[in-house]
């Protein structure tokens, strides 16, 4: 089956400094979750930025479906069905939760459809419904994260790129997110997931991919990666119980 999104031999970086990604490739088939793990600074977020069109690769190709969208901007990418949830906090701080969520549907022309999606995300994240009228910048860290996720769910894209979606979320909300990821996969969406909560993420994922120094270090079925003790120690963390 053809991949919904594919990065082939991508080289990318910031400004004049040495490139961050050097010959990175990944393919995410429709209806599957690919989980990208790796140490801090390995280039995971950079991969997602390239995939979403925020960062133009210096070489290599970005394919969405059958189309070559290398170098296309985020709007084109979105139009092609690729959505990204950024790492860290990217709510529109001085706009209300409502405005944030509804802006998620910026590209949808059909008003009724926007309302429908809004109702859906309000159901999914109680915080969003509760704080519908307050300024998003005033929410707690985890609440903001939920708003962001809700915002990205306003469209239902073919490819979802998630940059550490569970960061800062309490266990309940984390579960909601992973359930949602599974549900999207089941609905045929291709999900490229970056997570430091690696064990949890790999449990949800179909394919795991370890990134180090801008290259694919290992990739394979998620379950296999989980079982590899060496990878566990280097990238996934042991069971922290041994600390004391």
């Amino acid at each position: 089956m053809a991949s919904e999104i594919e990065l082939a031999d991508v080289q990318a970086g910031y400004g004049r400094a040495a490139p961050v990604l050097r010959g990175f490739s990944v393919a995410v088939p429709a209806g599957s979750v690919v989980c990208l793990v790796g140490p801090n600074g390995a280039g995971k977020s950079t991969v997602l930025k390239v995939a979403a069109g925020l960062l133009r690769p210096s070489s290599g190709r970005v394919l969405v479906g059958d189309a070559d969208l290398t170098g296309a901007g985020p709007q084109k990418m979105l139009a092609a069905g690729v959505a990204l949830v950024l790492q860290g906090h990217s709510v529109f701080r001085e706009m209300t939760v409502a405005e944030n969520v509804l802006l998620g549907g910026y590209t949808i022309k059909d008003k009724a459809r926007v309302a429908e999606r809004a109702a859906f995300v309000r159901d999914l994240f109680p915080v969003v419904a509760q704080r519908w009228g307050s300024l998003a910048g005033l929410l707690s860290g985890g609440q903001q994260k939920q708003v962001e996720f809700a915002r990205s769910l306003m469209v239902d894209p073919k490819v979802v790129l998630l940059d550490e979606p569970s960061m800062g979320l309490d266990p309940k909300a984390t579960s909601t997110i992973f359930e949602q990821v599974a549900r999207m996969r089941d609905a045929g969406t291709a999900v490229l997931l970056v997570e430091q909560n690696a064990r949890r993420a790999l449990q949800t994922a179909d394919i795991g991919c370890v990134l180090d120094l801008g290259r694919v270090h290992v990739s394979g079925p998620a379950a296999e990666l989980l079982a590899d003790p060496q990878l566990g120690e280097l990238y996934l963390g042991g069971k922290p119980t041994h600390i004391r």
Partner: protein
Amino acid sequence: MPSGGLVFQSVILGLLLGGLYALLAAGLTLYFGIMRVVMIAHSAFLILAAYLAWWSHERLGTDPLLSMIVTVPLFFGAGVLFQRLLLSRLRPITLTMMSVLLTFAVALIIEGLLGYAFTGTQRRIQLSYGSASIGLFGARIAVVKLIAFGLAVVALGGLYLLMKRTTFGWALRATIQHGDAARLVGIDTDRVAGYGFGLGLATAAVGGTALSLDTTIYPSLHWHWIGPLMAIIVVGGLGSVPGAAAAAVLLGLMQSLLQIPMGTTWAQTIFYLALFATLAFRPQGFFGGRLAQRF
């Protein structure tokens, strides 16, 4: 003790003046509150618009209000270009500081070119209805001031609706607050930011025309306006159009009334006193402005 008639007349003058202030400050609210840009050149653009109105009247004999047909789109375009070609290239980290200097540079350039083209002579449009007025309970309302006030109401109302009710307004605010996130929901941030700036300058075209109806203009006049306008948007709560309007009317009124006992020069200090009082007691402004106090 001032007579009741003088007080009433001053109230009317103050309200009319406040309306004009609100219009002149509207663009600043836009760039400053929403786009984090300190636009020193706003008043220079006001003066430029006023000059264009004067010039078209002088040359073509047309009513200065008609000049807006040209200046509004012209300024809008200039704003878009200014944002796209210059402001967007500044580094976000130092945007506030650099925008001050860049727009200051633009103000100097405009002042210099105006002086070059029209000399430093003070100019004033001579309208057939320039000294006409209508009576109201013993006070007089100058027709030109009333027109300026009307322009202010229309422009401000439009701006408010645009920002709060239209997708464009939302998109603009989103763009400023988190560019990357805005692009990721599909907003063409470059274009939106450009339009936002263009809009601010378009208000300058309207404001400048209103200004030209009843005052003298000269190239360095913009310095005179910077202080009061900045004070108005701080008191009004940065970024809040209704806040700026309320502050403008209030300060205009106070200035007008204070002139009775204190004279022209001292009455002007009210702007700065209000500014300092605002910062001391309510840095987020007295009318709205929620998160805006610190940036």
